[in-house]
């Protein structure tokens, strides 16, 4: 399955995921506490330096992920130009870009298995109260496995539709699509029970 981790291995890949997540929380709190434009520019520049350090490929992929923010940046800056409050607009826009950039940085340098280990650690107090966290891990594995399976089945449904009709299928294939998902769920449940259950 396609993932959002970086195409190049960086030094940050080896750092513990929990530390990276804690640092991200602290950095985001700091970003939202500071209202000064000069500091926000410094933070944003620092974020860009972090992206540039592992090399050009990393920088290009990383900045590509931030592209979805441009409509919001344009909207905010334009809005505050009209309300004569440009500085506040720049602070909000810079803060948003820096916060999203830093968060993406953690996602890009942390493998799914490392993230799962943090989740398992966070869930460990629950185990003491007798909550079964193994089923959570099974559920995660099922979603990862069945998303491409369902997507392929959906593709087949829409091909079958197009073989019969000249119009686009649109929402009408969602019903049979959901029926397929329900049937898969029933079959997998039966298979799990047959193997001794949870």
């Amino acid at each position, binding site marked *: 399955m396609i993932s959002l981790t970086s195409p190049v291995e960086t030094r940050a890949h080896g750092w513990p995921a929990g530390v990276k997540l804690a640092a991200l929380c602290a950095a985001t709190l700091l970003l939202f506490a500071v209202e000064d434009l000069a500091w926000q520019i410094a933070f944003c520049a620092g974020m860009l330096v972090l992206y540039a350090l592992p090399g050009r490929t990393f920088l290009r992929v990383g900045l590509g992920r931030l592209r979805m923010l441009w409509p919001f940046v344009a909207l905010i800056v334009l809005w505050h130009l009209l309300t004569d409050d440009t500085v506040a607009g720049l602070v909000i826009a810079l803060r948003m870009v820096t*916060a999203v950039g830093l*968060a*993406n940085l953690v*996602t890009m340098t942390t493998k799914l298995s490392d993230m799962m280990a943090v989740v398992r650690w966070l869930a460990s107090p629950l185990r003491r109260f007798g909550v079964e966290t193994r089923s959570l891990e099974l559920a995660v594995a099922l979603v990862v496995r069945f998303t491409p399976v369902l997507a392929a089945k959906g593709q087949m449904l829409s091909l079958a539709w197009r073989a019969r009709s000249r119009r686009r299928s*649109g929402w009408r294939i969602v019903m049979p*699509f959901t029926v397929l998902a329900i049937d898969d769920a029933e079959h997998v449940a039966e298979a799990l029970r047959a193997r001794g259950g949870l």
Partner: protein
Amino acid sequence: MERNLTMIALFAALIAALGLIPKFTLGFGVPITAQTLGVMLCGTVLGAWRGGLAALLFVGLVALGLPLLAGGRGGLGVFASPTVGFLVGFPIGAFVTGFIMDQWRSAPVGLAAGVASVIGGTLVVYVFGIFGMMMTLNKTVVEATLLVQAFIPGDLIKAVLAGFITSGLAKARPASLLSRA
């Protein structure tokens, strides 16, 4: 137990797979994805707790770094972006949708699912979505509402479609409609 688990997992996968279907454009030019339709179906088919957990599992996997959102987006960055409120609203919206389905058993399935999706899948999700915009972009309620109002008609249409789809499912797989079981 096994059935609850697989239903929750498969509906989380369904939300993700619906995001991969190419978006369709409404008559008045606003593109909509089927992803929120999946969130509504979680509530109408699975009921409050299972539906809410399915949506929560989906949002959790997005946070862990899987590109499951429409357009292949995902990762922690989404939780710092202006649309964070909608993501947080997904599980709660699915829960409320399912809760209304659970409670309003006297109504026909399609009608109950449609109304539940309007309240849970649209109203609740937008309350959280607008609150998220207010926080990240420093805007007032009115300004934030103005930013998202173009998408409200599309989501209302999806809620109506969720009603039709659920009544179809009630005929095709009556035993699997856990919200009415």
